[in-house]
């Protein structure tokens, strides 16, 4: 298929672009296979380059022959294009609609994008499972890397290599996989160096209504317990939801079959509920006609902040079991690809200072989200403006965005403990939904391998890890903090993430200015301290050289 077929009108002159808090721009609108471009053809006026993939939905309006297209983007931005001529407007609208909803992954922009920068370090090789296992090996010899899933047959959503207890053989893994949702048998997620406790994750056990059990599964998870120690199973669902899952063949670990484990149920909502919540929240944020009561009631009704609190609370619980109780933990929900990953990754942010560095955070996203099989492609196919009517089964959900929101909450409470700034989190949000990079394409390691992403596309990490980018994303306040950081989950402590949800609804001038001023203060002080130190050294040297000094 040629993109040209989809582009009915490639160019329209005299188009007016309107964006909140920015001057209107008049210029020429061009459609290419992957971009919507508005150029004023004047020097130093800003142009618009918008990836079609970033377009969540469009709305058309006509007043006479003047058409207006409202473009609602996945990054939550809303822009307006006034297009003279009804036909042109209709053509542009239908072209955008077609180009922003391409079915085939291999037509996406990352397959066409050629980087304008030199790739110093290929991000596709930056975070290999073998490498992270080497770190683990340096701490413990109780674990091994199994290639039982090397052809993705045991579990379609797992990577080829997973870390499992040393004493458990591949055969046991296969049997345990048959007992877990979508073959997601318990694997290592995190090893807590301080006390040797671990966090594992999996899919739900397939106990069904008649209480099936699986000796191999029990053996597998018991192998992670120290003699005489109990562990915790954190089921991210309420007991009621977990009970209902039995009717569909799922379920939870019974006390009788897992006597060494204590099960705790939490209440993280299913992904479809999260999507509704995002839609409502963004609606509330964008409606400027609300009075105070209406705004607060809409904010409350969206339940977004409730999800943030619930997810963080569960992550704190997991971290507490490990660090405070000195117990190992198994986390799962239903599939083990959504709420489970929110909990395991956030618990690591709390426990492990490495995850709070720029590289460490990338490694975490790579390990706990990409390799762990979070279905990015499905979840990010639509954002807050998608009505999803064209899709039979709605599978989009802001699971990853909620994770980033929770990280932002911790970052806000510990502003000096992260090597990266909020910008990095916003960047990941944007790229998860629409990107020139291949990192977030596909739903699993298997799909990514099939798409040959590492050969055909550029990794987001290749770009992020360039020194100038890393510098831009770094947090000027950072001071390495090796401690476990416990965030407050009181409602008063959890704020609406303005950097994402109010980003386009207010002028950022004053906040940007404040950020720059802060960077300036810190940089200036660093320079000054360096100067003081070098002067002090010079003086000391001169003094030892000074013959007069010796005679004194």
């Amino acid at each position, binding site marked *: 298929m040629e993109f040209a077929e989809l582009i009915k009108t490639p160019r329209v002159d005299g188009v007016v672009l309107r964006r909140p808090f920015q001057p209107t721009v008049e210029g020429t609108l061009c459609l290419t296979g992957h971009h919507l471009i508005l150029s004023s053809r004047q020097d130093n006026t800003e142009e618009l380059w918008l990836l079609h993939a970033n377009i969540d939905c469009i709305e058309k309006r006509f007043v006479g022959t003047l058409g207006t297209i409202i473009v609602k983007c996945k990054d939550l931005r809303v822009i307006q294009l006034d297009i003279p001529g009804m036909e042109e407007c209709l053509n542009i609208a239908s072209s955008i609609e077609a180009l922003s909803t391409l079915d085939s992954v291999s037509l996406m922009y990352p397959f066409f994008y050629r980087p304008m920068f030199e790739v110093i370090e290929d991000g596709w090789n930056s975070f290999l499972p073998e490498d992270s296992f080497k770190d683990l090996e340096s701490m413990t010899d109780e674990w091994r890397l199994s290639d039982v899933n090397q052809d993705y047959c045991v579990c379609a959503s797992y990577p080829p290599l997973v870390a499992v207890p040393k004493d458990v053989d591949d055969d046991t893994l296969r049997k345990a996989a048959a007992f877990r949702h979508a073959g997601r048998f318990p694997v290592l997620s995190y090893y807590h160096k301080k006390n040797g406790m671990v966090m594992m994750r999996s899919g739900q056990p397939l106990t069904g209504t008649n209480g099936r059990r699986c000796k191999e599964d029990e053996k597998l998870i018991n192998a992670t317990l120290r003699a005489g120690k109990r562990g915790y199973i954190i089921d991210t669902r309420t007991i009621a939801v977990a009970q209902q899952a039995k009717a569909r063949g799922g379920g939870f670990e019974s006390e009788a079959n897992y006597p060494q484990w204590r099960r705790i149920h939490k209440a993280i909502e299913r992904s479809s509920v999260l999507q509704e919540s995002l839609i409502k929240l963004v609606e509330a*944020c964008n409606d*400027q006609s*609300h*009075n*105070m*009561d*209406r*705004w*607060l*009631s809409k*904010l*409350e009704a969206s*339940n977004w*902040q*409730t999800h*943030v*609190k619930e997810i963080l609370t569960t992550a704190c619980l997991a971290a507490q079991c490990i660090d405070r109780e000195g117990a190992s933990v198994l986390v799962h929900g239903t599939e083990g690809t959504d709420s489970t990953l929110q909990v395991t990754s956030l618990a690591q942010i709390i426990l492990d200072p490495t995850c709070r560095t720029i590289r460490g955070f990338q490694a975490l996203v790579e390990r706990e989200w990409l390799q762990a099989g979070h279905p990015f492609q499905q979840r990010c196919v639509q954002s807050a403006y998608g009505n999803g009517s064209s899709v039979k089964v709605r599978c989009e959900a802001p699971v990853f965005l909620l994770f980033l929101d929770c990280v932002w909450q911790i970052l*806000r*409470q*510990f*502003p*000096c*403990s992260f090597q990266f700034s909020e910008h990095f989190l916003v960047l990941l949000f944007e790229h998860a939904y629409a990107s020139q990079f291949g990192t977030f394409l596909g739903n699993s390691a298997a799909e990514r391998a099939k798409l040959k992403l590492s050969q055909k596309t550029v990794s987001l990490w290749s770009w992020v890890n360039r020194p100038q980018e890393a510098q831009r994303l770094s947090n000027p*306040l950072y001071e390495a903090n090796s401690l476990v*950081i416990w*965030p*407050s989950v*009181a*409602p*008063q*402590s*959890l*704020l*609406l993430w303005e950097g994402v949800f*109010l980003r386009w*609804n*207010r*002028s950022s001038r*004053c*906040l940007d*200015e*404040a950020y720059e*001023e*802060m960077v300036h*203060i*810190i940089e*200036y*002080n660093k320079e*000054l*301290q360096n*100067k*003081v130190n070098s*002067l*002090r050294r*010079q*003086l000391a040297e*001169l*003094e030892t050289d*000074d013959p007069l000094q010796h005679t004194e």
Partner: protein
Amino acid sequence: MYHGHNIREGRWFTVVVILNHITEVQLLDRYTAKKPAIGTLYLTATHLIFVETSCNTRKETWIIHHHIATVEKLPLTGTGYPLNISCKNFHVVHFVIPSERYCQDVYHSLLRLSQPAKLEDLFAFLYNPKQDEDDRRNGWGFIDSAMDFKRMGLPNEFWELTDLNKNYELCSTYHSELGIPKTARKDTVLGSAKFRSRGRLPTLSYYHKESNGAICRCSQPLSGISARCLEDEEMLQAISRANPNSTFMYVVDTRPKLNAMANRAAGKGYENADNYSNIRFQFVGIENIHVMRNSLQKLLEVCAMKSPTMSDYLTGLENSGWLRHIKAVMDAGVFLAKAVADEKASVLVHCSDGWDRTAQVCSLASILLDNFYRTIKGLMVLIEKEWISMGHKFTQRCGHVDGDPKEVSPVFTQFLECVWNLMEQYPCGFEYNEKYLLEIHNHVYSCQFGNFIGNCQREREEMLKEKTFSVWPFLWENRQQYINPLYKCSLGREVLRPSTLPLNFKFWCGMYNHFDKGMQPKQSILDHLLTIIQKRVEGEKKMTDFQRVSRYRFV
């Protein structure tokens, strides 16, 4: 005898007389059931002090008696007799006292000490930080609100200061020096004062040099259903004429229309636009002190919930109405500032008596219009000018002494909260930081200094300046802590135009949950930057030292 040093009070080292002390007292966590701290409770003439003995480091909790809003004795529990204390600075402490008699003693002592019957029994009359009398006297001259009129350019061709109120005969609750239009004759002024509730005639609050627009304030007219007063009409015309840039002036009644109408039946009310030439009359709908008091009560109930869900919290926040009221005050302030700066019009503001809502709105508009009030000293001047000297009834609104609880209302707190919201929107726009607002708020209620005692200037003149200290020199001395490191004075005289969309108003956790440290960010960007600024000062000093040494030695 207990030798203590209250860190918050900074330099006030003293020996405090212990009235009573109780050992084995438990201090419970406000929210969780975690192990209580055990220690000794000391009751002194001025403070309640808890010294924790269960931990290795000596931890002290000091509560000044006047901060105590309520003391509550609860029924016996397994471990003793609970005594719950809520403070006006939103500090909440729950003690459990081992014996009933002790609990009873402390309870009654605190009731008596927290709200004495007479002003003379307030802490300020006891407080004596070893300065000599000259320092004390000079301290009262540190901020002079009349000087601020000079700064605005008064007297000029339109405005002048009059001493018609020098003996507080014209208006007993106003300052003795008032700004009035030059063209207003004496009988106009006197007549207008008679037609205004409690004689609170229209007088200058802020003069905006750039536009010639003025903000004036007064109380409601005694218009009733149909009464009118020519002098008052002339007075407004004089104000209008004092601004050559506008053909009209706004008259803003900050009350909800319904309340204003109800007042007409009592012979008060609002201006009939037909009787005044070229006025544009406007209601802005800020609720009265009783609504605000109840709203705060509800807000504090939300803050006190043990483990609320997000939904409980947000619903509670909404139902309290608190942020709605804050937004209403802010909206009114923005309206005034826009009228003056953009339309170059003058504005006359009143509510009922013109000492609560009017003070909020006028002072807020001044901050929006004039960057001087966004400096440490400027905020002192503004509070002195618009609140203290214009008769905001601090004694009653803060409940300093035993009195009518219906007169208590968090009007001044709301003003500070509006300023805080502005600081959040303009992080580089203010010389001061959040700590400054919190410290001012503390001292409004602490009664340690004389400034916020009394209901009007006349009361203060009579006794406070002779016997108490002023808070302003004290705050000024500690100003390093109150600096906003991000402040850019280069913003200059830019008028602030904040967004008042509801989503821009946040719950002020730093105020209402200030003492619940667990809820605050665990690392403070402000403290971090303040440390850096401190290091910078030291570094710069070292640089000059080194340079001097190297010149001296090696050149």
